[in-house]
């Protein structure tokens, strides 16, 4: 078994205009997806990140430059992540494919990254 980082990208507040029925349908699917994985011990962890209110730190000419970000107006932010347990990249990809995040908005996308093992 290996671990993978599932990074969920989206536009901030992409779901704010969903009708109530649609929103609850997506909630139901999303929870069902996560709970089914949890029950099988496939989810190691995961957190939802706020869409704004963070800090970005960069070096510029030997000096540390700190700025606010991302902003709620950004087109694309890292909205949350899961660490999943899977046999291989193919299984991790399948988990990501089924994640309702992908169906929530056309601009939503996901990234699956293998976590480096010490051995």
């Amino acid at each position: 078994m290996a671990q993978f980082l599932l990074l969920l990208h989206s536009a901030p507040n992409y779901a704010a205009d969903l009708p109530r029925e649609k929103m609850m349908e997506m909630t139901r699917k999303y929870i069902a997806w996560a709970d089914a994985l949890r029950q099988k011990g496939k989810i190691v962890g995961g957190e939802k990140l706020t869409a704004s209110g963070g800090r970005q730190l960069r070096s510029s000419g030997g000096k540390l430059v700190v700025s606010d970000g991302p902003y709620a107006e950004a087109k694309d932010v890292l909205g949350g992540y899961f660490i999943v347990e899977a046999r291989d990249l193919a299984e991790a990809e399948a988990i990501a494919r089924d994640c309702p995040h992908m169906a929530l908005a056309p601009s939503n996308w996901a990234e699956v990254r293998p976590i480096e093992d010490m051995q």
Partner: protein
Amino acid sequence: MRPPADALQPSIHRLVDTLARDSASRLVAALARRLGAGRIAVAEDAVQHALLQALSLWPFKGVPDRPEAWLATVAKNRALDLLRNEARGVMLADELTPIAPASTESTGRFDRELNDDELALLFAVCHPALSPEARVTFALKTVCGLTVPQIAAGLLSEPTTIAQRLVRARRQLEASGVAIETPPPDVLADRAEAVRTALFLMFNEGYSASSGEALTQPEFCVEAVRLSRALAVHPVTCSPASDAHAALLALTASRLPTRVGPDGVAQLLEDQPREQWDRGLIALGLEHLERSARGRVLTVWHLRAEIAAVHALAPSAAETDWARIVAVYDQLRDIDPSPVVELARAVALGRAHGPAEGLAALPVADGNPYGHAATAIFLTELGRTDEARGHFEKARSLARTEPERRLLERRLRS
């Protein structure tokens, strides 16, 4: 790998459905009551925000132990945020603190305590500033939690008409800054009838869905019976009409368990196993019916409740006092004429005096599945099976829900 359909999913489906329908409208009601009817939009935005938070957080964190309380807190905080941007924000913050999360606990099916928030909001949205149709429509949407197509079906109208009416009602209420409070007794009578009508239509949607897979949605009925009883026992809103209304809803709800058979096929009244009718609800309904006789007024609710009582007390369809039911429908036809009453009266007449009389009394069935079905049944009983077939087919093509379609399918095959 696709997650297997495990035992977990149905309970999650139920939970989220219940939350979407019940809590959302209850939360809006509780918030709107604090904010004033002019702020219903703020309350709705806040609840929408809470649902959105649930969507984005629960998959990561799991569903909280008390989801409704969680939603209530998030919605309340959001409402505060929205109002902080306004001048009154700080003052309202104090007023808002005591909002208790909507309770999910129920001690029994129909004996939950009176929820003053919802009753008050029902009366508030049935404001005379709105037209009578707008009052009922607005109440169904804001407090009862029906969708626009469901309201359209209940009011025999078009979804676009209903949607426009809702927009106008919102604007009117916000423009007039109506305060949400239980109206004083002297104006109550004017509003109570709209409240009863809204609850009746909400109940109907639950008892006989306007479309879909399921014939019944018992949650709507449970909620309507609960609110109707609250109306009947509330010191300000109790009246013979309210008691008759509560009697009608409880007595009709007693038949919910047998509306659809175990095979998923709708069951006609005469085919329902009456021993499965809810005795508790029948007793409750009869109690309200008795109390409804204390005045001198005779309302449509009294008449409808009496019909429901005759059915509830009859040991079988054959032993039903159909002549009495016809007589009550005659009275109902005088006060509240409608194609629905006309159809029901003709069916009762057919049972009382034979299919020929029933058939003659039926209104033209054009476009009404129940009208075609009744015509077909009377024709069958008269041995005119070829003519009956056409009406059964018509009824099947018009059937509103899947269990009803299956019933007609079965009649066509036999």
